[in-house]
């Protein structure tokens, strides 16, 4: 109790000391980074949890690319279940010369069976909850559609051949999970209006669902009945099946952000270690005195542990406040990504933050503080006796252990944790090594500086050599912080620009899908009318992959997740007599006119993902009919050509008789406002996809997601700044003495300031230079090895990064030097 009272009293003093403030700041940044991510991901997680039970808007559902049998209504009723039908399909809406791709959803009257719809009379109006669908003649649309086309509630919305009245603004639908990250706004309409619009036919790219809900026994019985009747392409979904891939995407994002936050923790840890070292030095007198007064080693240990705990608690409070603020801002940034509002964060994030503080303190600060109990009492007589210093190896081992623990925890598994830890430590060491080499190489610069007239330059450059260890730490930390931001903010944009340069100006920007065989010629005529010289149409047959080398795909364990996805989704098969444009043959043979067999040519990456090659056998199911073929060749496709291309191309003789639709792509000038509306009027079931607009929308989504990641990396940069301050604090006494001595020799304030300015400008400039080099190197590697692009030299980044680094660190440094300069030289000399 007595210890607690003393600790409390001393804690208040502690918090006024420079090094303790730096320690609190560093720890708060670490807590804020980790808890901020925890808060944010808990909100997304809660949004998903909330939806999981409603995700199907039913208890059981069957999904298929074609309409489900009519007698199922009766089957469901027989089991005492309520039932409904849904169909979702993309279509384009035109209004006032503008077009917008929408995700239409037609539902029967009883939809939703579980969960509720929320809508309002105006975009900002009061939300109304209902459990029934829009009546015939009405559509409910999302606000985004109103905004993009300049429509209002009450207006007519042209849909295919018909027109429906916009009655409500749709705010929430339960089974949105599938399209949570969606690009096209929703148009919710009545099933009864489908025929009048003529939007769907047998070949439409639509997803049908049959929904049923009721008591558990009825649901189980209905599931059993359906299981026997399911045909290829029909998938039975229960609540447990609700979007597993979305959940795994979230888990991956959570891990990535969690590990990204650890970058900030690593740097903050370095600052904590420096501050703790200084704290130990400053507290040695007090510890010696207490020992002199008869305190036992354990008393001293308890006292300092209590104070450390208090310091940690203050840091956690500040960190959590920062995290709360950060998640609110990031949540706002991300809000547009989700079709639903995010619930408030859970307090688990706070627990995660507090635990991070405990582990960071234990790993980075405790080794120094523990040594205080070993301060010899003789120090009261002999000031040169301090606490025995902690061995560097011991400190590194303890820091690595703490970091390893945090990484393992965030990664959730050992292998990823190992890679992440190696990556984190490797990056930090790499930067430190580069910084050391730069400083080593810079010795010549200092020696070369003229001895007279350039004293400040010589002395400032010399300071980097005199404090090389700390300078390496400062440069390494700040370069890390800046590099990650540059990579996201500059290199990403450069890569996108480089990719855009590879796309020809006249590359197709419109895709028409869902063209029926009898529409091909009239549509070709229409496009020619519009000035499109040679519109090429490609056949497309929907199918499902069922077997590879006679083995059912459900029994195959694919090495890649991509393979799993490819195998289970609907396949778009095509056929061609001629080798297609924008393709390159990698192996095997193209069929000749005399080849009669069932042969396919596969895109290389598609084949690799499925683990098959030339000579292997594939079996597809096309509307209930099996079709077998052997792989005859592998192709590489230039997707950037924006031509219509296919993973799977058949010999025409094998596929030409199968039912299918046609697709085409063409370049439409931005000034042409006539062709698409005309096309929509004359061919309502044909869907036009504006690729340019689609890319723009995807980019907006990515930009927002990247902004969230940048937010997390922002903490890394702040942590790097704290490392700089901690290093400054660590050598403040030496610097104070140095400045006092210089002043006693007659150095003016301006001279001292100039020398310090040169030192900080160099640290900041070198950090920026290293960061630019690292970001450029990473960009070049990505461009050359991953994306096959020419990565241009971004001179702007190489100039701006050192300038920004120099500006930031010289400002922070000079603010601190000003305080040292304000003290009379006598004080600095007497302090030593």
């Amino acid at each position, binding site marked *: 109790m007595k210890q607690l009272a003393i600790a409390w009293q001393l804690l208040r003093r502690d918090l006024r000391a420079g090094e303790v403030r730096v320690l609190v700041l560093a720890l708060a940044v670490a807590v804020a980074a980790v808890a901020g991510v925890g808060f944010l991901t808990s909100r997304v997680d809660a949004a998903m949890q909330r939806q999981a039970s409603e995700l199907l808007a039913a208890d059981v559902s069957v999904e298929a690319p074609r309409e489900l049998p009519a007698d199922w209504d009766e089957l469901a009723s027989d089991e005492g279940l309520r039932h409904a039908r849904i169909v979702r399909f993309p279509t384009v809406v035109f209004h006032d010369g503008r077009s917008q791709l929408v995700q239409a959803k037609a539902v029967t009257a009883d939809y939703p069976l579980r969960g509720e719809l929320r809508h309002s009379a105006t975009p900002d109006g009061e939300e109304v909850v209902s459990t029934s669908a829009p009546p015939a003649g009405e559509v409910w649309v999302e606000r985004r559609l109103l905004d993009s086309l300049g429509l209002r509630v009450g207006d007519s919305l042209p849909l295919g051949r018909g027109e429906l009245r916009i009655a409500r603004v749709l705010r929430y639908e339960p089974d949105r999970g599938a399209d949570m990250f969606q690009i096209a706004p929703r148009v919710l309409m009545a099933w009864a209006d489908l025929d009048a619009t003529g939007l769907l036919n047998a070949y439409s790219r639509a997803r049908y669902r049959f929904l049923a809900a009721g008591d558990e026994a009825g649901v189980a019985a209905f599931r059993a009945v359906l299981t026997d009747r399911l045909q290829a392409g029909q998938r039975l979904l229960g609540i447990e099946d609700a979007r597993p891939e979305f959940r795994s995407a979230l888990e991956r994002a959570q891990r990535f952000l969690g590990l990204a936050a650890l970058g900030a923790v690593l740097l903050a840890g370095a600052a904590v270690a420096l501050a703790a070292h200084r704290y130990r030095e400053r507290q040695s007198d007090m510890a010696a005195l207490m020992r002199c007064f008869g305190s036992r080693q354990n008393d001293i240990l308890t006292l300092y542990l209590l104070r450390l705990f208090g310091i940690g608690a203050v840091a956690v409070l500040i960190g959590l406040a920062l995290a709360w603020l950060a998640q609110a801002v990031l949540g706002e940034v991300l809000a547009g990504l989700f079709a639903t509002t995010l619930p408030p964060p859970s307090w688990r994030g706070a627990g995660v933050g507090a635990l991070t503080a405990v582990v960071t303190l234990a790993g980075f600060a405790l080794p120094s503080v523990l040594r205080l109990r070993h301060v010899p009492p003789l120090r009261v007589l002999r000031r040169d006796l301090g606490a025995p210093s902690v061995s560097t190896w011991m400190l590194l081992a303890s820091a690595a252990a703490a970091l390893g623990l945090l990484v393992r925890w965030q990664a959730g598994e050992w292998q990823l944790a190992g890679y992440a830890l190696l990556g984190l430590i490797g990056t930090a060491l790499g930067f430190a090594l580069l910084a050391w080499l730069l400083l080593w190489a810079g010795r010549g610069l200092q020696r070369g500086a003229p*001895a*007279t*007239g350039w*004293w400040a330059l*010589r*002395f400032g450059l*010399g300071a980097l*050599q*005199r*404090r090389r260890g700390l300078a390496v730490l400062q440069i390494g930390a700040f370069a890390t912080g800046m590099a990650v931001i540059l990579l996201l903010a500059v290199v990403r944009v450069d890569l996108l620009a480089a990719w855009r340069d590879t796309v020809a100006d006249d590359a197709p920007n419109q895709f028409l899908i869902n063209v029926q065989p009898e529409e091909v010629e009239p549509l070709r005529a229409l496009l020619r009318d519009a000035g499109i010289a040679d519109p090429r149409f490609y056949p497309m047959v929907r199918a499902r992959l069922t077997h590879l080398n006679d083995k059912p795909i459900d029994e195959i364990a694919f090495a890649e997740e991509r393979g799993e996805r490819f195998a289970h989704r609907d396949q778009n098969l095509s056929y061609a007599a001629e080798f297609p444009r924008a393709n390159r043959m990698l192996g095997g043979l193209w069929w000749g006119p005399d080849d009669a067999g069932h042969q396919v040519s596969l895109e290389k990456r598609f084949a690799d993902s499925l683990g098959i090659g030339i000579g292997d056998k594939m079996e597809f199911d096309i509307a209930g009919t099996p079709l077998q073929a052997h792989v005859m060749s592998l192709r590489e496709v230039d997707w950037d050509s924006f031509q219509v291309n296919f993973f799977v191309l058949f010999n025409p003789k094998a596929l030409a008789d199968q039912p299918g639709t046609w697709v085409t792509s063409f370049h439409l000038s931005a000034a042409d406002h006539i062709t698409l509306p005309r096309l929509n009027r004359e061919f309502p079931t044909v869907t036009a996809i504006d690729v340019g607009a689609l890319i723009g929308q995807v980019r907006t989504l990515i930009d927002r997601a990247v902004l969230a990641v940048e937010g997390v990396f922002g903490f890394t940069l702040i942590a790097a700044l704290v490392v700089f301050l901690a290093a400054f604090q660590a050598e403040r006494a*030496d610097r104070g*003495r*140095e400045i*006092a*001595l*210089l*002043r*006693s*020799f*007659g*150095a*003016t*304030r*301006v*001279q001292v300031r100039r020398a310090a300015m040169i030192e900080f400008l160099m640290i900041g400039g070198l950090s920026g230079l290293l960061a630019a080099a690292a970001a450029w190197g990473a960009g070049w590697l990505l461009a050359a090895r991953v994306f096959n692009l020419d990565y241009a030299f971004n001179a702007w980044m190489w100039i701006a990064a050192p300038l920004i680094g120099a500006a930031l660190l010289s400002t922070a440094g000079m603010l601190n030097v000003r305080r040292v300069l304000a003290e*009379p*030289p*006598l*004080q600095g*000399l*007497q302090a*030593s």
Partner: protein
Amino acid sequence: MEHGFTVPHGTLSILRDIHLRVKAGESLAVLGPSGSGKSTLLGLLAGLDRPSGGRIEMFGTRIDDLDEDGRAALRAGDRDAGGVGFVFQSFQLLPALTALENVRLPLELSGNRDADARARDWLGRVGLGDRLDHFPRQLSGGEQQRVALARAFAGDPALLFADEPTGNLDRATGAHVAELMFSLQRERGVTLVLVTHDENLAAQCDRRVRIDGGELRESA
């Protein structure tokens, strides 16, 4: 001149009613027990701090109303413009600089064109010509103080302030350093203000004053 601090319940007086004049070329010892304020007096005389009241002149210039940079400029000058050197009890060498660099530093600071040659010359004079590239931690206490003496005299000061220059040294080494200091002082005709509690050291000065309880009086 007087000096003190404002404390919560009034003023703490360190030096009171100090009248002192030091003639050019003279050596003056300021004697006094620990805590008597003699180091504070030395700092004020050298312009390292400002007195709370009164006036201080150096080389005919009032320094108590000069700002920090004005006082620094006076200290930085060479003999013609004044110029001040220092020797401290704790040597005050910069640990990251070699002996040569430590001596060269104030010379470079004042823009001296032959700083390097001069520093080498002075280190030779104090018997450390073969230790130029040694860092302070590689030198003994006596050697470190000799580096400090070389640093102080290399700038060719008109006035040298020495604060307990032998305080951290054993008797024999202290005597050797003191002998070196006085011989250089006489040879160069430098005015010396020496603060010490060592009567023997003070005895080597032309004149002694004693400070006690913040007040100054002439000593025999």
